[in-house]
């Protein structure tokens, strides 16, 4: 009853009803780029980078539970692939993403997904917005130039005692700004700070005491690309 058959890029796939589409695709060797999505965490659906065609409608695959007879197009749909690329390009012009000066380079998911979507340049005009940095907290440097508003830190990093949010987003639209509660941030353990810095898909939340702590060539996505990681992790979880 729970077993369903869906079609991705013409390939029939047997899976379990209700599983997330992006996971099913990855498990079957079809890579869908993601930025805000984290496996085993509630879906955020903020970045839309994983948008694919489901029954002829473009929809973010991290928010779709699979259902019987679903027809999905990922790599076969060239227009959709170009749209995913355009979304990445938009993120690159919206902030100031200067990879040569960023310590997250090589372990940045935005950069890694840029490589996967074959982005060489953005088709949109570069905005060069002016953003204030926030370095008031003891252990966190908030580099607002690089925030892509994925809201991972907002939803998943909370004060251990009160469960209050530490990060939040103020204003709306092009005036949106990532904020940090300094008092709560200073109560964070070093492990939690490291978790937040690691969770940030870009170099916005930076651990003040770490800096450039991994040599070039030895960084996460230099050892294994984001595509390989997505496909391997999923494969491993299938076997276990």
């Amino acid at each position, binding site marked *: 009853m729970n077993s369903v058959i869906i079609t991705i890029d013409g390939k029939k796939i047997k899976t379990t009803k209700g599983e997330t589409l992006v996971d099913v695709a990855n498990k079957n060797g079809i890579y869908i780029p993601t930025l805000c999505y984290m496996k085993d965490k509630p879906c955020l659906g903020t970045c839309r980078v994983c948008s694919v065609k489901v029954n002829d409608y473009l929809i973010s695959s991290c928010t779709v539970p699979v259902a019987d007879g679903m027809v999905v197009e990922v790599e076969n749909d060239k227009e959709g692939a170009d749209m995913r690329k355009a979304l990445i390009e938009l993120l690159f012009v919206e902030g100031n993403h200067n*990879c040569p000066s960023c310590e997250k380079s090589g372990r940045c998911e935005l950069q890694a997904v840029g490589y996967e979507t074959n982005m060489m340049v953005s088709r949109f005009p570069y905005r060069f917005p002016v953003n204030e940095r926030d370095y008031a907290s003891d252990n966190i440097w908030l580099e607002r130039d690089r925030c892509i508003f994925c809201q991972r830190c907002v939803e998943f990093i909370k004060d251990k005692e009160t469960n209050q949010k530490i990060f939040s987003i103020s204003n709306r639209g092009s005036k949106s700004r990532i904020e940090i509660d300094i008092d709560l941030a200073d109560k964070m353990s070093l492990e939690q700070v490291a978790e937040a810095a690691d969770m940030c898909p870009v170099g916005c939340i930076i651990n003040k005491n770490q800096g450039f702590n991994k040599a070039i060539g030895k960084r996460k996505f230099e050892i294994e690309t984001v595509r390989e990681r997505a496909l391997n992790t999923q494969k491993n979880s299938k076997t276990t």
Partner: protein
Amino acid sequence: MEKETDKNTFYSHDLPSTKMDTKVMAKRDEKIQVAMIGLCGCWGCTLSFLDIDERIIGLLEKVAITRSSLTDIKRIPKRCKIAFVEGGVANEENIETLEHFRENCDIMISVGACAVWGGVPAMRNDVSLKDCLTEAYVCNVGAVTGDKPVIPYHKDLPRITNKVYPCHEVVKMDYFIPGCPPDGDAIFKVLDDLANGREVNLPTSLTRYD
């Protein structure tokens, strides 16, 4: 822009130079003409071009480098097929040069982060030009005590643009090689594809943004 025409003004490319061997010149003329330029950048991409090492010998069978910092030819002598453009646009001279390249070259390649999106020089886009020049020349920590601070200004100095622009926001660019600088392998792949009449296919395994 009006050019100075008084007899005291002359350009380096008008100076007398040793004529090259006619046979060598005739052979060069048959090849694919390439022009190179560094705008607002650090010439790192041109150095990276030299990282193609001995592959340059094979490449030079097919192409002839005309204007470039390597040949010391300062004007584009004739229509070129390929232009290798490094650096972004940060002053009036950059705009003029880039337009001159666009008029005289068929295929323009943006090489490196500065040409592609502005790169390190574009970090000044955060502040106003006034603040930028004040920081560089007036409030500079290296300023000599007691000296009157001067922001350089002269008719012979190109005026600086308010912001730094990627090349493709000034003229149409045809191909892009990101990287600061791009690897020699990436530069070679694009030049080799063009020199052999293949469609340019630069895989992301050869490129990077940093």
